[in-house]
């Protein structure tokens, strides 16, 4: 029931209940919460607390498969969304439990909700993979380019955005021919290819890159102050399309399955709630017992202790590493080489922050910018001494947050 940013949804089913595919089983509660739907038809066998991949436990309903898929494979009437009022569009997105699928998991209807003061809004679709070696977003854009673009138009209408930009990575330009075709010849949708170097997929960096492009081409006239820039992941846009046009809730998503232990890495369309192990089975199984299984990407993903964890809405990729690769590194002392400083996209000094947090001096660390760390992992990746910088900085941020409240 916790597959989004805010409070967990309230579970609506009890053991023994019969559910259908796409049925509402969790009701949004609280500020930034979202609905949860059943991804398969069947009977609820158990409702209990299970730990998520990130270690935070939440209530989940275990559904034993039974009955028929009454939606999948059956044509459903596409609604003429152009005729619907904005509130209706927003309502459909909300009821279908669409959340930011790039990793933020903020319910999309909140992001699209009209703000108190209306300003020129500038819609950016983020088609840059949030982590290296993931491929789900690009596959989606290639195969469902029409739906993605339509989803974008829906959002444009809701937001009354003046401009639409689709940001993609430079390296995926060729692969995305269909998308270009879809976008070309029509109104003001423009496609911008940015450097795909990690962590370019991060929302803030996409925004910064797009805005700096603008100010360059317009001689600095159109800065970020002129309008709000709203960034949505392409997977989210697809979910928006499905929700609005097909009235289909968010019960499946594209997931990259990769890693050195996977026999046939690829991108799968996966129902929410599927076991991780089943994903690997689908990809030809594992070549050897894995040493480490990671949910998410290689840089920020969370390593899990078992293959029984379910795929949730936020899972963009699943990786399995061989045991040789998974051997945890032995951290050597910092030699102040500065690699982390050069790697940090936020212009921090990770090694100093690391030392400050280890000394327990979170106050100084915060004064030196700890809170702008996004845990992107670049510093730890670059570190020749294999110091778990991200882990320490995350701890420091948590300590800092506790200090603020206390």
């Amino acid at each position, binding site marked *: 029931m916790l597959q989004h940013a805010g409070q967990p949804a309230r579970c609506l089913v009890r053991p023994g209940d019969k559910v259908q595919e796409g049925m509402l089983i969790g009701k949004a509660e609280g500020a930034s919460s979202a609905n949860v739907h059943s991804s398969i038809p069947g009977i609820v066998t158990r409702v209990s607390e299970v730990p998520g991949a990130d270690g935070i436990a939440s209530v989940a309903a275990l559904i034993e498969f039974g009955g028929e898929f009454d939606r999948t494979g059956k044509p459903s009437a596409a609604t003429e969304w152009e005729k619907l009022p904005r509130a209706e569009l927003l309502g459909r997105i909300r009821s279908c439990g669409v959340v930011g699928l790039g990793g933020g998991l903020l319910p999309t209807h909140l992001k699209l909700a009209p703000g108190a003061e209306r300003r020129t809004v500038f819609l950016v679709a983020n088609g840059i993979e949030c982590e290296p070696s993931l491929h789900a977003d690009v596959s989606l854009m290639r195969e469902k380019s029409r739906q993605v673009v339509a989803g974008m138009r829906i959002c444009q209408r809701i937001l009354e955005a003046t401009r639409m930009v689709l940001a993609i990575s430079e390296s995926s330009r060729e692969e995305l021919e269909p998308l270009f075709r879809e976008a070309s010849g029509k109104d003001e949708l423009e496609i911008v290819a940015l450097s795909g170097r990690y962590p370019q997929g991060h929302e803030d960096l996409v925004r910064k890159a797009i805005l700096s492009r603008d100010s360059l081409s317009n001689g600095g006239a159109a800065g970020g102050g002129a309008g709000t820039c709203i960034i949505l992941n392409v997977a989210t846009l697809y979910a928006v399309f499905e929700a609005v046009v097909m009235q289909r809730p968010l019960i499946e998503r594209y997931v990259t399955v990769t890693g050195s232990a996977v026999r046939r890495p690829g991108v799968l369309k996966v129902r929410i709630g599927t076991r991780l192990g089943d994903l690997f089975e689908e990809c030809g199984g594992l070549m050897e017992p894995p040493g480490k299984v990671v949910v998410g990407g290689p840089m920020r993903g969370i390593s899990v202790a078992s293959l029984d964890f379910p795929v949730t809405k936020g899972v963009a990729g699943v990786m399995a590493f061989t045991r040789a690769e998974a051997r945890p590194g032995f951290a050597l002392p910092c030699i102040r080489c500065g690699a982390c400083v050069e790697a940090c996209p936020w212009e921090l000094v990770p090694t*100093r922050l690391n*030392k*400050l947090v*280890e*000394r327990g*001096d979170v106050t100084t660390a915060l004064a030196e910018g700890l809170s702008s760390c996004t845990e992107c992992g670049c510093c730890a990746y670059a570190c020749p001494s294999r110091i778990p910088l991200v882990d320490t900085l995350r701890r420091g941020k948590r300590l800092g947050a506790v200090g603020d409240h206390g």
Partner: protein
Amino acid sequence: MSFLGIILTFSLVDNVVLTRLLGICPCVGAPGGMRATASTAAATGLLMSVSALAAWALETYVLLPLGLDFLKTPAFVLAVACIAGLLDLAARRAVPQLLRAAGVPVAAVAFNCATLGVVLIAAKGGFTALQSLVVGLSAGAGFFIALTVLTAIREKLDVEQVPEWLRGLPLHLISAGLLAYAFLAFDRAFLSRIFQGW
């Protein structure tokens, strides 16, 4: 000795902290960031220059004519303390916020042995009034340099995992020792080569 010579001698070659081991107290062991140290050092430098001038006047016009040479120490000590007190008073009146923001520990400045040391060194050298002032100023500058460098090193050390028995004061002293070795680069021969050639 030329003024440039005096400046170089007392700021680098004969650095009051690094060759005379004077006035290290505000830097080692005590807490306080770069800001506090820098302002303390600046205040001490100011005190040094004024005191050097005052001591010169005291010696030339009072002590030597009266033949009270042996009273030099108490006279200088009193002079330095009084000047420190007056400066403190003036600063409190003029810029109270600044003083508080900078966090200058007035007593530590006043009782800093570096000031008295500089005054005594200047008195020994037989300088003129203007020279005494320059000696005080450049010694103050040297004091400032040494303390700033040491504080930067200290701030770096404070976040490191150093051996517990040496953490803090001992390591600050050892750092000062290593710094003093590095500053041996500027010795008297260096100065004479610059001014007189090889």
